[in-house]
């Protein structure tokens, strides 16, 4: 990497870490498994390594990807009223805005609930697969992980699930509903994603990337 010479070190040559939130300098900590290192000033979690985290995150990310594909392919919700029926898939929800001026919104919804979450999962799998096996990281693994981190706020599958719940309450009086496998796949996806985000210690992953390429 061309700008390695710009890395700064502490007075005793030890590597330093600045809190990403408040900029306070810390000596790079050796944090034992299941311990949490907090910033001394603002309390931000700097590191929280877990036992076998790489394998666990990898397993959860693969599970999420499969659930996401199932959620898009299988029937989502069926609605019937007055002898009329309507089968809705996640794709239909995405295409709801596909008339006239609202096409960009269709694209945005597709990105927020399917494409960005999926891109994040693939980037995480790409980064962690070799690390979990103890191999050298794949090319551009750092860029892939940085992308996954950037996309995090824009990955809105869990918000979509709550949106579905609200919509179901709205139409419950109007028609009878049946929930398809895709709905439950989406619910499971949200639970797995929460579990994965809680297991993932960014600091440990960056350090592992450093070590594996050193």
């Amino acid at each position, binding site marked *: *990497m061309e*700008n*390695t010479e*710009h*890395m*700064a070190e*502490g007075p005793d040559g030890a*590597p330093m*870490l*600045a809190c*990403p939130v408040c*900029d*306070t*300098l*810390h*000596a790079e900590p050796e*944090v*034992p498994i299941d*311990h*949490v290192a*907090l910033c*001394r*000033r*603002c309390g931000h979690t*700097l590191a929280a390594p877990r036992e076998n985290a790489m394998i666990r995150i990898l397993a959860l990310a693969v599970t999420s990807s499969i659930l996401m594909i199932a959620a898009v392919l299988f029937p989502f*919700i069926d*609605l019937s*009223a*007055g002898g009329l029926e*309507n089968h*809705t898939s996640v794709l*239909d*929800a995405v*295409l*709801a*805005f596909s*008339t006239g*001026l*609202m096409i960009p*919104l269709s694209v945005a*919804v597709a990105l927020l*609930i399917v494409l960005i979450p999926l891109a994040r999962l693939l980037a995480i799998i790409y980064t962690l697969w070799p690390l979990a096996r103890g191999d050298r990281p794949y090319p551009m693994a750092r860029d892939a992980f*940085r992308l996954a*981190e950037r996309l995090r*706020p*824009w990955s*809105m599958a869990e*918000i979509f699930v*709550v*949106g579905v719940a*609200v*919509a179901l*309450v*709205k*139409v419950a009086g*109007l028609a009878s509903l049946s929930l398809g496998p895709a709905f439950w796949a989406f619910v499971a996806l949200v639970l797995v994603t929460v579990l994965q985000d809680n297991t993932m210690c*960014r*600091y440990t992953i*960056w350090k592992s990337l*450093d070590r594996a390429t050193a």
Partner: protein
Amino acid sequence: MSVHHMEITGPGDSLITARQAGLLACDRCGRVHDAAALACARCGARLERRDGRSLQQVWAWLLAGIVVYIPANIYPMLRTSTLLDQSESTIVGGAIDLFHHGAYGVALIVFVASIVIPIGKFIAIGYLALSLRRAGFLSAHSRHRLYEVVEFIGRWSMIDVFVVAILSALVQLGSVATINPGIAAVSFALSVAFTMLAAQSFDPKLIWDAGREPS
């Protein structure tokens, strides 16, 4: 779970920031660089200098978010047609309808997600940006907490857009009942996205730079 506190490098026991030490730290991974570095040597992210450009971006995104929030409330969010009648409902109208139908919990979710959170975010981001210039009535710790809440909660406003998408996809029963999205859905989605970008452009380190609190 036990909490492991770390040793601080720096003179004595005082807390020193990378900036005070003449260094530049990465926002994403925390790696510290000398002041001349442009990109993070570990993760490749662009290194942010706290030179006021970040604040200009915050104001620009925030104003854009407020501007598009106005049509989002004036124009209809949903157009419903049934055998008997046709109606259009705005964001507030939709919440009120739910309330009249007795779905108080859901009415509250919709009201909080599409009125309280967006307006609260405009005020909170504006306050955070203004408080950097003159000392506010909140400490750096409280303002930092406020920033974290804004960052965490902002994306949940998108819920209303998803509700409209699902309803429009679900309720397509010909002449019996049909729901179509209204143009307000677009401006509301834009407003949520712009305020998320405003919150992301805000560098929380600025709070601590200005605070200079003895800890």
